[in-house]
């Protein structure tokens, strides 16, 4: 089936099988391998992308469901090739990653969280990232990175 999706601002028209999951469309068809597949059971959040600005687990959405929608992946977040998005920068500044596997999903979920709640409490950040698992258990610095990105003092 022919779908037309705006991915990171660019219109993409592709022929996909209806059963193709969004994450495999992004990775295999468009080559956007920044989005990781972790658990593949909608638990871990590694595959989180934005659909029309909201965080979504792309392993639990069909590519055909994204037809006519706007998708943003981790590759589309930074304003330019030599500049990081403030959330990416904050993850770097606060050592919000260890192995890095959960990071693209964490960053996308964190951006969506701050869109909905620009100045969350620590508890709200922890709850807001409930859908993302870090198997290095590096949550403390991830939470710190999100709080810092929201302009709050984490020193």
């Amino acid at each position, binding site marked *: *089936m022919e779908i037309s999706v705006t991915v990171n601002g660019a219109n993409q028209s592709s022929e996909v*099988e*209806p*059963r*193709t*999951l969004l994450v*495999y469309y992004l990775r295999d068809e468009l080559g956007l391998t920044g989005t990781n597949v972790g658990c*593949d*059971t*909608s*638990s871990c*959040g590694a595959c*989180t992308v934005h*659909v029309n600005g*909201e*965080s*979504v*687990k792309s392993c*639990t*959405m*069909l590519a*055909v*469901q994204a*037809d006519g929608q706007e998708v943003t992946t981790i590759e589309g977040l930074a304003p330019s090739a030599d500049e990081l998005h403030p959330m990416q920068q904050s993850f770097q500044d606060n050592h919000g990653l260890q192995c890095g596997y959960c990071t693209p999903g964490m960053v996308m*979920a964190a951006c*969506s*969280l701050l869109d*909905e709640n620009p100045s969350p409490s620590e508890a709200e950040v922890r709850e*807001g990232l*409930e*859908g*993302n698992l870090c198997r290095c258990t590096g949550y403390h610095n991830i939470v710190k990175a999100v709080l810092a990105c929201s302009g709050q003092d984490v020193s």
Partner: protein
Amino acid sequence: MIPAAFDYKKADSAEEAIALIAEHGDEAKLLAGGHSLIPMMKLRLAVPSVLVDIAGVNDLSYIDDRDDHIAIGALAKHRSLETSDLLISECPLLAHIASKVGDPQVRHRGTLGGSLAHSDPASDLPAAVLALGGSLVAQGPNGEREIAVADFFTGYFESALAEDEMLTEVRIPKAPGSNWNYQKFNRRAQDWAIVGVAAVEVQGATQVSLVNMGSTPLRASAVEAALAGGASAAEAAEAAAEGTEPPTDLNASPEYRSHLARVLTRRALEAGGVS
């Protein structure tokens, strides 16, 4: 995991969706947010040969004030329920329970109608709606019918919806004020409730429902009767597991679930001030 192959059809209206499911019978499934169906398809627990995508039926996402009740379009997302000013003021229990479903990503996609039609006894929203009472509107080839919430959940993942019917609207009574509470007991973030209890005062009566205490969401009628008879919250809560057949799984035995139901019911009644 990739679902088995299927034909994908997009419906632009409820009528079109109903015509498509009527044409394909039990081979077809309606797809709304997909957050119950797609995981089941990936695990091959559901293998529909036709998916009818109704997410584009835009006029079913409303949350409307209808004087004596609130009408919610079946495609309203959990996130819209959670943030609806109307629900927060007129039916805070439902807004709160919507905020406890899964995680933010799930709530951005999942729909109220999808959750109810899926009829998972371990889900939060079926029990929320059951506690509130009210009715559901099903549309079929011969028009609409209204089903009382009490008659909707008929078995394990089974509802009163016929094969060629689509759930279009949920009508819940207003239950404003602070006399409500939801206790969801689980051990890990984003898990289903091992047991959950919703308690709410609706037009002067205390109504209590149980999550994951049987093959359907259940009203704790023995608790409600005890309260109506003047029992205290603690006394009434002792009856929470009466008449239930709780499931057994890796998380809990039936005995443990019964214990949880009693404790959580007491907490819900006391915290909600609905005794």
